[in-house]
C-alpha cells in the first residue's frame, strides 16, 4: 500500500559516526580549508572588487614574505602555543580556566618589575633567574586562588578566573601610572635586561623554550600518574572519589601547573620579546589559546598545528589590510570565515548526514 502521508517526512538523518579513519578526517579538514578559501574569496570580490588570488598572495607574504616575518610568525606561534599548553591541563580536568589572559599579564608584570628594580644592580644571570621565579610565582598565585575557592567552596571558576583578568589589567595600569614618569605613559623597553640573543636571532630562545615545554606537557599528560589523575577527575569526579583520588588536591595542583606555564608565557612576552609591558601585552591570546587547545583535542603536538594556523591567519590578514588599504574589518571577516569552516568541519567529523529512503516511494 502506498503511504503518501509519509512522503514529505524526514528527507535526511543526522547520524553519529562510529569512528573516523585518519585519512577521511584529514580529507574533511582539507576540504573545509579549501571551501573556506573559496567562500572568503567570493566575499572579498563582492565587497571590494579586488582579485581574491592577489589577496591570498598578500596573505601569504604577510606570514612568509621576509625572513623577519617568518621569525616573527614563529615567535607568535611560540607564545600562543605556550599559553595553549598552559590552559590544557586545566581544561582537560574540566576546570574552565578563562583567566589565562590575566595569568600571563601578571607573569609579565612580575618580570618587568624585576627588570626595572633589580636590573643593573645584580649580575644578569642572577637577574634572569629571579625573573623566571617571579613570573612563575605570579602566574601560580593568579591561577591557584580560583582553584582553592573551587576546591573548598565550589565557587564558579569561570567567573572567578574572568574577574582575575580585570584585576591583572588594572594592576598593570596602576604600575604604569606610578612608575612611568614620561608624559606618554609608555614604559620604555629595557632590552639590556632581557633574554640573551642566540645566533643573532632574538626570538630563538623563546622558541626553544616552547618546544621543550610542548614535549614536557605531552609527557606530563600522557605518561605520568599526575596526568592520569587529571584525566580521571576531568572525566568523572565520582570515579575519582571512588578510587580515592583527592580531588581537591588534584584541582589545586593542576592549576599550579597551569598558572606556572602562564607565568612563563608572560616571562617570554616581556623578558624575551617586548622588554616592556602595557595592558595589551597578552593581547587576547589567553582566550585564543582556549580555542587552540580545544581544536587540538588537548594534544600538545596538534596544538603546534592549530596555533600555527591561527597565527598565520592573523598575520596574513594584517598584511591584506595594509597592502590593499582595506579596513581591518575585511581581514577579520576572512579570518572569521576560515575559522568558522575549520571549527564547523568538526561536526562532519563526528556526524554524517544520510538521505533516508523513506517508505517505498523512493525505492
Amino acid at each position, binding site marked *: 500500500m502506498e503511504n503518501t502521508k509519509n512522503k514529505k517526512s524526514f528527507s535526511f538523518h543526522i547520524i553519529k559516526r562510529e569512528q573516523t579513519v585518519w585519512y577521511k578526517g584529514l580529507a574533511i579538514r582539507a576540504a573545509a580549508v579549501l571551501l573556506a578559501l573559496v567562500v572568503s574569496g567570493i566575499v572579498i570580490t563582492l565587497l571590494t572588487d579586488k582579485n581574491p588570488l592577489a589577496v591570498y598572495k598578500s596573505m601569504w607574504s604577510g606570514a612568509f614574505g621576509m625572513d623577519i616575518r617568518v621569525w616573527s610568525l614563529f615567535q607568535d606561534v611560540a607564545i600562543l602555543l605556550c599559553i595553549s599548553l598552559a590552559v590544557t591541563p586545566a581544561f582537560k580536568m574540566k576546570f574552565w580556566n578563562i583567566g589565562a589572559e590575566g595569568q600571563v599579564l601578571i607573569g609579565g608584570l612580575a618580570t618587568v618589575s624585576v627588570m626595572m628594580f633589580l636590573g643593573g644592580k645584580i649580575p644578569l644571570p642572577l637577574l634572569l633567574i629571579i625573573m623566571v621565579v617571579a613570573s612563575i610565582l605570579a602566574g601560580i598565585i593568579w591561577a591557584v586562588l580560583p582553584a582553592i575557592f573551587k576546591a573548598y567552596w565550589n565557587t564558579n571558576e569561570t567567573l572567578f578566573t574572568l574577574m582575575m583578568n580585570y584585576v591583572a589589567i588594572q594592576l598593570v595600569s596602576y604600575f604604569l601610572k606610578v612608575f612611568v614618569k614620561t608624559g606618554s605613559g609608555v614604559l620604555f623597553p629595557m632590552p639590556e635586561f632581557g633574554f640573551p640573543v642566540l645566533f643573532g636571532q632574538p626570538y630563538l630562545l623563546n622558541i626553544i623554550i616552547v618546544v621543550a615545554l610542548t614535549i614536557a606537557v605531552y609527557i606530563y599528560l600522557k605518561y605520568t*600518574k599526575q596526568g592520569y589523575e587529571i584525566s580521571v577527575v576531568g572525566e568523572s569526579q*565520582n570515579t575519582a572519589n*571512588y578510587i*580515592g583520588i583527592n580531588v581537591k588536591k588534584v584541582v589545586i595542583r593542576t592549576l599550579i601547573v597551569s598558572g606556572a606555564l602562564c607565568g612563563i608565557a608572560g616571562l617570554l612576552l616581556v623578558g624575551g620579546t617586548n622588554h616592556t609591558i602595557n595592558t595589551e601585552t597578552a593581547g587576547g591570546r589567553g582566550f585564543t589559546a582556549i580555542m587552540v587547545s580545544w581544536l587540538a583535542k588537548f594534544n600538545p603536538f596538534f596544538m603546534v598545528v592549530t596555533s600555527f594556523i591561527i597565527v598565520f591567519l592573523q598575520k596574513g590578514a594584517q598584511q591584506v589590510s595594509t597592502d590593499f588599504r582595506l579596513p581591518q574589518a575585511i581581514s577579520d571577516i576572512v579570518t572569521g570565515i576560515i575559522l568558522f569552516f575549520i571549527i564547523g568541519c568538526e561536526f562532519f567529523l563526528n556526524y554524517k548526514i544520510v538521505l533516508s529512503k523513506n517508505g517505498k516511494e523512493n525505492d
Partner: protein
Amino acid sequence: MATAAIELKNITKTFGSIVANRDVNLSVNRGEILSILGENGSGKTTLMNMISGIYFPDSGQIFIDGKEVVIRSPKDAFDHKIGMIHQHFKLVDVFSATENIILGLKGKDKYNIKESAKKVEEISHKYGFDIDPNKMIHEMSVSEKQTVEIIKVLYRGADILILDEPTAVLTPQETEKLFKVLRRMRDDGKSIIIITHKLHEVLSLSDRVSVLRKGEYIGTVETANTSESELTEMMVGKKISLNIYRSEPKDCEDRLTVENINCVSREGVKLLNSVSFTAKSGEILGIAGIAGSGQRELLEAIAGLQHIDSGEIIYNNPKTGTQDNLRDKTPIQIRDLGVRLSFVPEDRLGMGLVGNMGITDNMMLRSYRKGKSVFLERKAPHDLAEKIISDLEVVTPGTETPVRRLSGGNVQKVLVGREIAAAPTVLMAAYPVRGLDINSSYLIYNLLNEQKERGVAVIFVGEDLDVLLELCDRILVIGSGSVTGIVDARTTTKEEIGLLMTKGKGEEK
C-alpha cells in the same frame, strides 16, 4: 476475529548502524493484556516509543481499529487514545496528584482543580486505585507515583495503555495490587501492553505474549499454552537453565561488622538509621529493599565515600587477626590498612569506570599508584585487561576502545573483573545484573559464587527478589534507611521480604 485495537505491520527503526526494530508485527485486541517480552536491548521500549509518538518509524505501518494512522508526537498518540506510562516517571514533584494529572490539558478543565479532583476520584474508584488526589508528588511512594501516571493517561481518555517495566520498582504486594487494577481495566475493554522481562509476571497477567530478540520479532504465543522454559528459549534463542547454583557456606567467620551506623544528608534527611549487621566470609549476604531506601548510602559508607555521623564499621583482618575501624577513613586509608575491599557500584560508567578510557586505563584506576615512579606503568594493567577479556569473554575491538562503546554486559564484566582481580576479602556489588541479558547475568552470579567459595564476604544488593532468594545465603531487608529484618534466604518467602520492605516506612509515619 474482530479488528485489533492496534496493529503494527513491518515496523523498522534504526539508529545509525544499530537496528532497534526490524519488521516487527504485532496486534492487541480490545479487552486484552499483551506482554512484550525480551531481554534488555531487544527493542521493546523503542517499539512502544513509536506507538506513543516519541520516535517515528523508518518504515512500516500502524493501524488503529483497522485504519492506518501516522503518529508523529505524543499529542497524536493521545488523539488516538494511546497512553504510555514510562519507566521513569515524568511528574512535577511540588505539584499535587491532580495538578500533575491535568497539567498540559487544554480547555475548561484547566483551572477547575476541584472538578478535576472529583473526576480523578471517580477513575480511581472505578478501577480500584488507592490515591489521594491532593497529595503532593514528593510525599508519595514509588507505587503511588506510578498510580498517578496511570490515572494521568486514563484521565485523557486512553483506551490503549502501554506500561514500560511497571513492576521493576514495586514490592511483590504492590505488584499484585497493580495487576488487579490492570485486570479490571482489561475487563472494562481497555487494551493493555506491558513491557517486561520477568517471566512469572508474564504468565500470571497477560493473555498473549509477543517476544522480541535483538530487535527481531520472534513470535506471539497464548499465555495459557506456554511455559517459562519455552518463553526463555524464544527470548534468548537457545535452551538455558534458569537455576542459580548455590553452595553451602563453609568456614564462616565474621569479616565485617557494622554497628549502629547513622548517616544524615546535607539537607538533614536521615539516610541510614542505626544500621547493624555482620557480613561473614564464605557467604553471600543479599540486601533487598525498595529502590532508594539507603542501599547506596550503606555501601558507600562502608567504602569510605559517605560520611557517617555515628556508629562503627569493624573489619576483622584475616591475615593479622586485628580489628580495624573503617569509619571516617578515605578509600585510600582503608586500602592502606590492608583491607581488601572491592566495590562494584551501581553507576558503572559514572563511578566504577571512566567511560572515555579504554580497558587498560580502567584497570589502572585501581593500580596506578603502585611504585614510587612519577610515570605510569602500563604493562601490568594491559596484561590484566587482556586476561579479563579472554577469561570473561568480553566483546570489544581492543583494550584501547573506550568502555562506553561496549554493551552493558561487557561493561559490567570489565568492572566486576577488575574488582575481583584485586583478590578481595569483602566484595560489595550494587545491582550488578541491572540491564544485563540472561547470559551475562548468570556469568555474574557464577563469579559471585566463585568468590564466596574462596572465602570472600560477598554483599549483593539486588532488585529481583527471585534472584536474591536463589543466590544469597542470608538477606538483609532495608526500608527507609533502617534494617527491617535479616532472614535466611533458604527458608524465607517473597511475601515475607515484601512485607519487610515496606515496614520501615510504616513505622516512620
